[in-house]
């Protein structure tokens, strides 16, 4: 095990004001289970879980609420004991509606209610990889970095593809957020256990742990926890630059490999990337039989009375999180689920946390901005800032005239929506938003064409 400096410089990137000092010194604090939980069936990337409980059911912590519903999907388990008050459509952080199981955790357990399900602790050394993978799948684990890719899918490379590098993402390049930082400082031993389990499942790849240089305490804690580990393991210290946490850029910065254009995945470059929080949770699921039904969320921003890193059940209402942090010090101008560069603005605090809620930001007026887009002055800041080397200025112009086809020619599908372009645009143009819209339009068109082709094929079949 050794610590090395990153040898590869990513293209573009920006340096937002980090503001991590608000919460970086706050140890992870476990929040008491709130009275009401709203547990989303769509906490991960892919098909939402299929809800298998109904109003009136009494559920136990760890009990299945939703079943995995497809290849890229994950199951959802109850974060606490409680009575199912309703199964209803509610908006998630993105505003999209999803089925939520609303739990009343104060309701007493009815007589004869079954005990909470128990998951046997497994010794990873003596358990075969398939059984380890089965545990991860039954835990409903998904990436906790933000995208929420189902972990069991990620850890089973398709036939013919081999994982040569297992990369642990501890970059946490989003400003304000400190949840991953606290996990690295306080739970480095769990990260080590998770790394050893993932390594066993993936067939002993080399391990790289990527941390940005502004987290020396995390690097020290990891060095201590990983001391004496055998095999090819390195902590790679990345210079501070947003977006080092992006999977593709992290792979390049740590091992110098390039993931081809979408739909290629990191495994096509021989890499699997998992967030530090996911790796630690994976260790708990295997070694302790603890289901990943809670996570650390950084509740921060200048408008929060006491910024904290809160360990809360997945399904906690944002209003309960804010109340646990002392409420609001001043009225926020914007409330963001996630980080300020990629998070989602929410209209109110009735949204609940999921496995991917890394932060809840309450930004006062002077920290955020409301823009009126001006004409592009062609300064090229967006082009210089784009880590994917796209021409944001042209994509934005194309989408202004509704020309998604032109945007597609400009490789907009490669856009990772990191926000670096809009961040620096002196004309406050909605560049990231244009890319997002272009991608949505192109995807919708492709889906429509596919459906049309399928219908045509059916017609041919009939004739």
């Amino acid at each position, binding site marked *: 095990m050794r610590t090395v400096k990153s040898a590869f410089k990513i293209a573009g990137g920006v340096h937002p004001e980090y503001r991590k000092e608000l919460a970086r010194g706050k140890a992870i604090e476990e929040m008491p289970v709130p009275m009401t939980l709203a547990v989303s069936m769509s906490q991960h990337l892919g098909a939402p879980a299929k809800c298998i409980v109904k109003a009136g059911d009494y559920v136990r912590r760890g009990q299945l609420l939703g079943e995995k519903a497809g290849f890229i999907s994950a199951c959802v388990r109850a974060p606490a004991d409680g009575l199912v008050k309703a199964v209803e459509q509610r908006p998630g952080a993105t505003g999209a509606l999803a089925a939520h199981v609303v739990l009343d955790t104060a309701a007493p357990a009815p007589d004869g209610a079954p005990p909470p399900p128990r998951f046997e602790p497994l010794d990873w050394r003596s358990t075969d990889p398939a059984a380890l993978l089965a545990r991860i799948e039954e835990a409903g684990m998904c990436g906790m970095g933000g995208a929420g890719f189902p972990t069991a899918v990620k850890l089973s490379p398709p036939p013919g593809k081999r994982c040569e590098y297992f990369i642990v993402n501890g970059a946490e390049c989003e400003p304000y957020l400190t949840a991953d930082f606290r996990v690295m400082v306080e739970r480095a031993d769990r990260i080590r256990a998770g790394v050893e389990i993932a390594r066993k499942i993936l067939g002993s790849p080399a391990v790289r742990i990527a941390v940005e240089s502004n987290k020396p305490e995390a690097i020290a804690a990891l060095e201590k926890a990983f001391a004496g580990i055998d095999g090819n393991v390195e902590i790679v210290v990345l210079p501070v630059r947003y977006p080092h946490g992006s999977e593709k850029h992290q792979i390049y910065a740590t091992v110098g490999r390039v993931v081809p254009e979408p739909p290629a995945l990191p495994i096509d470059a021989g890499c699997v990337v998992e967030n530090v929080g996911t790796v630690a949770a994976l260790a708990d699921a295997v070694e302790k039989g603890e289901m990943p039904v809670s996570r650390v969320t950084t509740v921060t921003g200048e408008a929060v009375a006491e910024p904290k890193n809160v360990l809360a059940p997945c399904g906690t209402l944002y209003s309960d999180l804010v109340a646990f942090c002392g409420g609001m010090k001043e009225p*926020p101008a914007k409330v963001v689920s996630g980080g300020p560069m990629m998070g989602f603005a929410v209209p109110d605090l009735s949204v609940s946390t999921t496995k991917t809620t890394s932060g809840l930001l309450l930004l006062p007026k002077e920290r955020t901005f409301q823009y009126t887009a001006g*004409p592009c002055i062609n300064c090229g800041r967006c082009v210089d800032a784009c880590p994917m080397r796209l021409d944001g200025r042209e994509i934005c112009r194309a989408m202004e005239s509704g020309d998604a086809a032109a945007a597609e020619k400009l*490789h907009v599908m490669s856009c990772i929506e990191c926000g670096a372009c809009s961040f620096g645009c002196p004309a*406050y143009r909605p560049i990231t938003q244009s890319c997002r819209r272009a991608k949505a339009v192109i995807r919708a068109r492709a889906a429509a064409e596919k459906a049309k082709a399928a219908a045509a094929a059916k017609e041919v079949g009939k004739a």
Partner: protein
Amino acid sequence: MKPKDESRHWLLSSSPHVHARTGVRGIMLDVILALLPATAAGFWFFGMDAVFTVAVCVSTCVATEALCRMAMKRESTVGDLSAVVTGLLLALNLPAGIPLHLAAMGSVFAIAVAKQAFGGIGMNPFNPALAARAFMLISFTGPMTTWRAPLARGAEATTCATPLASMKTMFGAGAAADAGGALPSVWDMFIGNMPGCIGEVSAAALLAGAAYLLWRKVISWHIPVAFVVSAAAYSAVAGGAAPHVQILSGGLLIGAFFMATDYATSPVTRTGKLVFGAGCGLLCMLIRQFGQYPEGCSFAILVMNAFTPLIDRWTRRKPFGAK
């Protein structure tokens, strides 16, 4: 805590939710600051005539911008200060003592024809100040090439040769020695004690401003360095005045750092910027050697402006991960 009430006013928009907070106005303000040393040097060397020229150009540009936007029924863009930059750049590219009505006419052309007719800030294919200068040079060749000796305060404007006019004859073998005596010393050329346009004479002041722009990351080094290096390389090969004399004369430095780097009219990629800068330097020297006018910097940049969209297309980068 009253989240319910406050929530009615929360902003809802697409990420990112934070911004670098440098706006167009901030950038223009930086350019104006960076031009102040050269402006001050112009005032020092050419006196009140220079002050009047700057005042007329800036105020006419701002007024024209306001009137154009009103006539087009569009929101005013005076606040972005780009018209101030255009006015200042135009004035700095005019000879001191130019009749003020001509300066005003050039300013109207810069804003109304070269900028607003194309849709305003960011839309103009040619640098407005340079387009106006070219228009004036062609239309009023006499006053535009009547140079006044520096520090000749109170004296009548006299027609005296700029170093470039002296150097025109120097290309080719043998002639250098003849004209050598007509050139100011390198030190005078560096500080600006020579005939020329108001803002172009003092290399020292221009470089100070350029350093500020580079430090503030308003411009990158690519265009100016490619410009200067290609001009120097050309003159080293073509003979005539020494490369450093060519660089210190005429509008080359103000052109390389302040005119060729105009965002709207120059390419955005690094490769594109290098191609653009090199093209400017080369064309500038070709015009200086073979053209009708002694100075070719403005025309060189204007010609390269026309190539900007093409250069941008040719130098578009492949996305990260693309084959």
